[in-house]
């Protein structure tokens, strides 16, 4: 067991180092090399954190959905650990997105918070998955907590498109998505070095995400092992 754990730990270390490097390069590219935005000036550089972190959060909620579905289907503890880990890190990245967005919004829109569609949607995501974590912690019986959370993980994810649609129809004030504008390839709108910075930063966030996920997953596994050990020593 110990021999098998070593290479995994090593590769996890490599993953973490890669994440750190990519984020550092991405930040350097974004803060120094890329030109300031024509309209927003220097403050737009916060995008290099903001956009990757929300995309990572969405990826995370998708993994919650996958883990939840797999758990209900196969009843394997590891799928539940995956869903739980992904939910925790997803909440972390969503909160980061909101904080970064708020800092970006203050100089751009003049307010810390506005009830614009994308902001609202992000806030609702934070509420749903904080609720998911609360649900888990408030159910004593572990397998019951796992299935309850799995149901919420599935329903929450399926609800996202509906929430998205409704808050968009309700009110839209946000700048139109700047990267993926229809009819125009992205490189015509944005300075190429901005795109490079964003791409590197996104890669860095992804690596960081999987690094954190593997750590959190390992933690869940270790909890299971401790439980199994204590069970063995019990009766």
């Amino acid at each position: 067991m110990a021999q098998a754990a070593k290479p995994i730990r090593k590769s996890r270390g490599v993953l973490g180092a890669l994440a750190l490097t990519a984020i550092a390069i991405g930040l350097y590219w974004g803060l120094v090399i890329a030109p300031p935005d024509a309209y927003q000036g220097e403050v737009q550089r916060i995008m290099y954190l903001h956009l990757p972190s929300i995309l990572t959060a969405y990826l995370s909620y998708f993994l919650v959905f996958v883990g939840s579905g797999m758990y209900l289907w196969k009843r394997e503890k590891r799928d539940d650990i995956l869903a739980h880990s992904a939910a925790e890190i997803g909440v972390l990245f969503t909160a980061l997105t909101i904080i970064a967005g708020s800092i970006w919004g203050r100089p751009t829109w003049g307010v810390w918070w506005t009830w614009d569609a994308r902001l609202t949607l992000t806030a609702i995501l934070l509420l749903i998955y904080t609720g998911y974590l609360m649900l888990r912690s408030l159910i004593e019986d572990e397998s019951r907590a796992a299935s309850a959370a799995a149901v919420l993980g599935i329903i929450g994810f399926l609800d996202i498109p509906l929430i998205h649609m409704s808050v968009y129809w309700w009110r839209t004030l946000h700048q139109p998505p700047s990267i993926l504008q229809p009819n125009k390839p992205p490189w015509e709108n944005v300075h190429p070095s901005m795109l490079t910075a964003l791409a590197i930063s996104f890669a860095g966030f992804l690596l960081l995400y999987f690094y954190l996920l593997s750590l959190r997953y390992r933690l869940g596994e270790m909890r299971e092992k401790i439980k199994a050990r204590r069970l063995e020593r019990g009766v």
Partner: protein
Amino acid sequence: MSLLSETFLLLRKDLLLELRRRDSLLTMFFFGTLLLFVFHFSFDLPPDKVAEMTPALLWLAFLFTGTLGLAQLFNAERENHCLDALLLSPLDRGALFLAKTSFNLILMVLVEIVVIPLFWILFNLNSWNLLPQLFLVTFLGTVGFCVLGTIMAAITLKARARELLLPLILFPLMIPIILATIRCMENVLRTGELGDALPWLRLLLGFDVIFLTLGVLIFDWVIES
């Protein structure tokens, strides 16, 4: 076929029990009325503003009373471990979901039938002729609320502080229903017809259909330990 007959059997049992004790219906009805008074005093709105606020105020009242109903939804099964008796039986779990959903739906609709006209009286509104359309929109929203609410009530059944937890996880998921019903009601009140709100109505119907189907399919996993 058996799904429907089992649903009917369970629903009849729940209605009979409710008829004998009237716990949920009475508390929900009084709470709904109470909220109207609270709204009246806390907002103190001039008559022309009331019409604008009506959909939002009504839906706040329905959300709160509905949550009260959901918190008591499985009370009949709580005593004597009757939920175990149902789970022990060859009952299709989807039928249990449908029965509980329709039970809460019936309670909420009964409350709404009283609370909406009462709102018109208390706030001196004149648009009585629009009530049928408003009821229809409210009904579709209430279906969505009960569908998702029943699933959430079932997964929080064994949780600590479940009455507090239930709205915490339910309300964020209910955003599409809340926004869609309020927009539809606004349009009805303003123009007398749905008009621009037609996409909202479709969203409402979509929500109802998606989660109703999902509920029937996964309630097996929802309710079993």
